[in-house]
């Protein structure tokens, strides 16, 4: 025990002679002991779970890169190798794949919590804007990562996804060519997506996350008081960040990890068939988090659709500047909450419509054919 203590003292002194250790210790202690407002609850752990998932994606991503080869000849084979031959490769790939899905879910919950508690209001507008940008970056992460295993589904999913970009008038074909590195999804596309996925986006996301966290720490968590009347939390009711909130987060984190491991083991990520540019499989759909937007575009003619479809993200991005109501309690801002909840419901409905569109489904023994717009019709053979 005393050996450890001596070692700590030695390192402390050694560093103290070279760095302003007192300032650093003071800073860490201040950060650790920072009081959180009393309303901080289990809902405030979604952000830190997203942060954990970011770490998970980085670590498992690095491990996957060890065996992954970004060429059309080897990509599928190398992913196949990872999930069949490399020890625990299936687990690491599963963590990465499920991690990406869970990350988007956690971010959505995090955004919903922030919205409902109005934590985006002055002075935290920038934190919100950066958060929305982060969400966009994470979706792009998902989109680029989706192609990398070079399977039929990923190849054709990407083809459909980039088709949307190509349909923009004037700049569309240009943008699509730039995105694909050619006229169709090919080895060039794989190379580009790989670079964006493993170099560009990680740095962007890490940088934005750092800014996001620094802003959050310097401004402190929002209270439920109206804008301008915020009371700095103090006294007996506050919750210290360390160790109280951290322990709480560790409890959530442990359970979350167990759930994630269960998903990886029980719901393995199937690899499917290798990409074949000459055979289009039936019923190709984008990933679930792109579906609402994909479905939304169907209801408008191309040009108008793209103009219209930029509006919802813009509204979300600029929300802190549009919502001037100083109140934070949900009951006191009925208009904003109603519009927000309706928008969330509409997104979910669009996603469901997108999921069922162009599919036939049996509901209570009756066959329904969902058309392009997701509207169900009794199947002709059932009607007869």
């Amino acid at each position: 025990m005393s050996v450890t203590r001596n070692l700590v003292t030695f390192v402390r002194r050694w560093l103290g002679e070279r760095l302003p250790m007192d300032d650093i210790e003071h800073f860490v202690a201040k950060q650790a002991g920072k009081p959180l407002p009393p309303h901080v609850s289990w809902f405030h752990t979604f952000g830190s779970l997203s942060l954990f998932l970011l770490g998970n994606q980085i670590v498992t991503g690095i491990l996957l890169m060890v065996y992954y080869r970004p060429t059309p000849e080897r990509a599928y084979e190398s992913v196949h190798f990872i999930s069949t031959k490399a020890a625990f490769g299936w687990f690491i790939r599963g963590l990465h794949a499920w991690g990406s899905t869970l990350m988007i879910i956690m971010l959505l919950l995090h955004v919903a919590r922030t919205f409902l508690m109005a934590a985006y209001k002055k002075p935290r507008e920038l934190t919100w804007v950066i958060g929305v940008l982060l969400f966009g970056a994470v979706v792009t992460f998902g989109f680029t990562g989706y192609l990398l295993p070079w399977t039929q589904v990923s190849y054709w999913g990407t083809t459909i996804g980039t088709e949307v970009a190509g349909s923009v008038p004037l700049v569309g074909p240009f943008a699509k060519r730039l995105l694909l590195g050619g006229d169709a999804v090919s080895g060039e596309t794989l190379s580009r997506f790989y670079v964006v996925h493993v170099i560009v986006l990680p740095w962007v996301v890490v940088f934005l996350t750092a800014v996001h966290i620094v802003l959050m720490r310097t401004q402190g968590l929002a209270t439920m008081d109206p804008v301008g009347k915020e009371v700095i939390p103090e006294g007996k009711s506050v919750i210290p960040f360390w160790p109280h909130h951290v322990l709480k987060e560790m409890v959530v984190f442990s359970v979350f990890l167990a759930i994630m491991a269960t998903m990886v083991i029980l719901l393995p990520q199937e690899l499917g068939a290798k990409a074949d540019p000459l055979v289009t499989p039936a019923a190709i759909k984008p990933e679930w988090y792109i579906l609402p937007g994909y479905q939304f575009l169907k209801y408008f003619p191309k040009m108008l659709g793209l103009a219209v479809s930029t509006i919802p993200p813009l509204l979300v991005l600029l929300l802190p500047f549009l919502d001037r109501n100083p109140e934070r309690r949900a009951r006191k801002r009925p208009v904003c909450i109603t519009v927000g909840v309706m928008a969330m419901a509409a997104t979910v409905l669009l996603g469901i419509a997108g999921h069922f569109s162009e599919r036939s489904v049996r509901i209570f023994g009756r066959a329904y054919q969902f058309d392009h717009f997701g509207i169900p019709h009794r199947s002709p053979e059932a009607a007869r």
Partner: protein
Amino acid sequence: MSDDPVKTDRRTFLDMVIFGGLAAWGTAMAVPTVAYLWPARSGSGKAASVSAGPAKDFAVGTAKMLQAEGKPVIVIRVSEELFRAFSPICSHLGCLVKWEAETRTIVCPCHAGIFDLEGKNVSGPPPRPLPPYSVAVVEGEVVVKL
């Protein structure tokens, strides 16, 4: 640290269990990582190859059947210098073809399809040639690249 010895003991015990748990947790995550990084049977990047044994044990005009990465491979020594390798799955209905030394052809036993030494379908129902693999003699050993 508190002055009450009993209290201190209890707290340190809980702390020790927590630290022990965290250490076990860390180990449990490090072990699969190292196992994953440990070189497996064959790398993912390098195109796999399979050996058909030493060239001196391979008589001219004979053939060998190998299994590599779960795929069958037929290797034929055509002459002193020349080796050829093909996927022996007949392009007709998928039977495994055989080397026939007397006629120096590759024959499918199922429907009498015949392939020549280039793997080209010369007679019978097979619609396509046999997919070839490249063979080389590396340090006296016959190696098929997949």
